C-alpha cells in the first residue's frame, strides 16, 4: 500500500509537525465531516441495543443517554418479523439475478465498442450510453413510466392498434425484470469504461503472436482478451458482493407504491418504512447494523477468496 520514504520518516516528530502543519490544516475540514456524518452515526448504532425514545431528552444525544438498554431484544424482534425475511430474500434474489443478467452486459458492450474501428462512431456511442448514468432515479423511473407505463408511449400505440397493453410498471411478478432493465438502461454504458480501459492495456503483440499461430477471432477473445480482463472482473465482483445487501435504494423506494411491498421491499426500504416513518429507531438500527455487518463480512470473505485464487483484490495482503 503506502510505502514510507525513509528520509521523511527519520525527522523527529516535532520537526515534522513544524514542517507539515499546513497539510494537517488542509485535511481537517474533511476529517471533521467524516467524523460527524460517518463515524458518529456509526457509533450511534448503539440505539440498536436500546429501547430508544427520542422524547427522553432535548437532544438526540440526551435521548440516547437516557434510553434504556435492552440487549438483543431489537434483533430478536427483527428476526421474528416475517417482512424482514421477505425483504432480505428480495434483496438477495435481486442481487443474484443482476449478477447473472446485468454484470456481463458492460463487458459485452465494451468488447463490441472496442471492435468498432471508426473512432468517431465509438466516441458518439459512448457519449450517448454514458449519459443515463448521470440521471437521478426519479428521472429514470419517470422515463420508464413514460415509455412503458399505463399511460405511456407503448400502451398508447398498442391501444391505437387495438391491442390491450400489458401491465409492466405495476406487475409484481415481472418486477425483477423491470428493475434489472432499469439498471441496464442507466448503467450499462457507464460500466464499460473500466473494461474499455482494461482492454487498452492488453499488449497488442499477444494478439499478433496468437494470430500468427493461427488463432482466430474467438480463440483470441477466449485466450487473450478475457484473461486480460480477469483482474478487473474479479475486483468488480468483490465490490458487488460486498454490496450484495444494497440494491438501488431510491429505485425501490420510488416504485414500492406501484407494485406493492411484497415484490419491492428490500432491506433499505424496510429500514425506511419500519424506522424512519414509524419512529421505531432501535428496531431500524438493528436492521441497518445487520446489513452493515453482513456486508463487511461478505467483502472480507470475497477479498480473501480473491487472494486465494491469486488475484490482487480490493486491498493488498499485508
Amino acid at each position, binding site marked *: 500500500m503506502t510505502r514510507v520514504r525513509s528520509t*521523511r520518516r527519520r525527522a523527529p516528530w516535532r520537526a515534522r509537525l513544524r514542517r507539515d502543519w499546513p497539510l*494537517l490544516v*488542509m485535511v481537517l*475540514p474533511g476529517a471533521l465531516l467524516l467524523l460527524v456524518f460517518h463515524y458518529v452515526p456509526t457509533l450511534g*448504532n448503539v440505539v440498536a441495543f436500546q429501547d430508544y425514545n427520542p422524547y427522553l431528552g432535548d437532544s438526540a444525544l440526551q435521548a*440516547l443517554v437516557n434510553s434504556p438498554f435492552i440487549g438483543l431484544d431489537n434483533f430478536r424482534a427483527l428476526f421474528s418479523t416475517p417482512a424482514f425475511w421477505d425483504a432480505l430474500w428480495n434483496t438477495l434474489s435481486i442481487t443474484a439475478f443482476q449478477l447473472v443478467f446485468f454484470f456481463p452486459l458492460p463487458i459485452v*458492450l465494451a468488447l463490441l465498442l472496442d471492435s468498432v474501428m471508426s473512432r468517431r462512431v465509438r466516441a458518439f456511442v459512448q*457519449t450517448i450510453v454514458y449519459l443515463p448514468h448521470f440521471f437521478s432515479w426519479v428521472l429514470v423511473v419517470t422515463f420508464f413510466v413514460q415509455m412503458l407505463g399505463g399511460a405511456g408511449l407503448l400502451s398508447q400505440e398498442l391501444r391505437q392498434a387495438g391491442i390491450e397493453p400489458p401491465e409492466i410498471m405495476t406487475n409484481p411478478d415481472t418486477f425483477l425484470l423491470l428493475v434489472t432493465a432499469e439498471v441496464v438502461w442507466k448503467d450499462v454504458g457507464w460500466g464499460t469504461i473500466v473494461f474499455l480501459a482494461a482492454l487498452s492495456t492488453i499488449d497488442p503483440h499477444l494478439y*499478433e503472436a496468437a494470430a500468427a499461430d493461427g488463432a482466430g477471432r474467438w480463440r483470441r477473445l477466449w485466450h487473450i482478451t478475457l484473461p486480460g480482463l480477469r483482474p478487473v472482473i474479479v475486483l468488480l465482483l468483490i465490490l458487488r458482493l460486498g454490496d450484495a445487501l444494497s440494491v438501488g435504494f431510491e429505485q425501490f423506494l420510488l416504485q414500492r407504491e406501484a407494485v406493492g411491498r411484497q415484490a419491492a421491499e428490500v432491506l433499505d426500504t424496510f429500514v425506511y418504512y419500519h424506522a424512519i416513518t414509524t419512529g421505531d429507531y432501535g428496531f431500524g438500527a438493528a436492521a441497518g447494523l445487520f446489513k452493515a455487518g453482513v*456486508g463487511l463480512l461478505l467483502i472480507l470473505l470475497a477479498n480473501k477468496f480473491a487472494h486465494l485464487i491469486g488475484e490482487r483484490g480490493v486491498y493488498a495482503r499485508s
Partner: protein
Amino acid sequence: MTGTRPVWDEKPGVAGQVAKGTVLTAVVLVVVVPLWVALVTSLSSRATINAAGGLVLVPRGIDFSAYRIIFAGGQISQALWVSTLVTVFGTLVSLLVTIPAAYGLSRPGSVGHRGLLFFFLLTFLIYPGLVPSYLVVTGVGLKDSLWALILPSALNVFNFVVVRAFFQNLPAELLDSARVDGAGEFRILWRIVLPLSKAVVAVVGLFYAVGYWNVWFSALLYIDDNEKFPIQRVLQTFILAGQTPQTSGTAVGTALPPTLAIKMAVVVVTVAPIAAVYPFVQRHFTRGVILGAIKG
C-alpha cells in the same frame, strides 16, 4: 479519425458488420428515444398532443407555453432555484473540502499521514446505517435546512481517492523546487498543483454537481417545507405520485397548456443541465475514473 486495423486481424464479414451496426443502433435508440419523446411532447401544443393521443413522437410546430408556465413562478420555478443553489454551493463546498484533503494526504511520511489516511479509507468498509445518520443529521439541527442536502455528502471518499491519486502522479521535483524557493503548502496547492489538475477537478466537480442536482432521498428525509423542495422531489410528487404542482396564476385568459406538456417540460429542464455540461467533461472520464479505480 479512423483507427487502422492491424494486418493480422481479419476483416469481419458482412453479416458480422450488419449485426454489430444493428446492436449499436438499437442501444443508442433505447437511450435517445425517451429523451426525444419528452422534448417533443414538451414543445407540443394541445392540438398536437390530442392528435397523437398522448406522447408525441413526431414534432408538429413548436409551442413554448409549457416552459412559460413553469418559469413563471410557482412550485417548479422555486424548486429549480433551490436545486441550482444546492448544486452551486454544494459543489463549491465539496471541492473546497476534497481538494485540500487530497493534497494534504498525498505525501506519505508527513505527520499523521498513515492514521489520517486510514481514517478516510476505512469509511469504504463501514456503513453507518440509515437510522443513526438520520438521528445525527436531525440532531445537529439540519432538519428543514438545505445544508442537510449538502454537508452529510460533502466529502465523497471515492472522489477524494481519485483526486489524491492524481496529485500523487504529479512530478515531485516540481513541488520540491517550489518548496526550496520557500513557497508554503497553500501557495503550492493554489499556484502549481491546481493549474495542473484541471482535468481531475472538472471530473470530480461534475460528479459532485450531478450528485447535488439529483438529490432526492435526502430531501425526502430532511425537508418537509415544500418551499425548499429540490427539483427531483417535485418531479417525483408531480409525475410519479401524480399531484398537480401550483403554478402562478399568470395564465389569465389564455388556455393552460396540457398537463402532459408541462410534465415533460419539467423532465426536460431536469435533464438539460446534465446534458449541457457533461459532454465537455466526458473526455476526462476514463483518466479520472480509472486512476481512482486502480489506486483505490
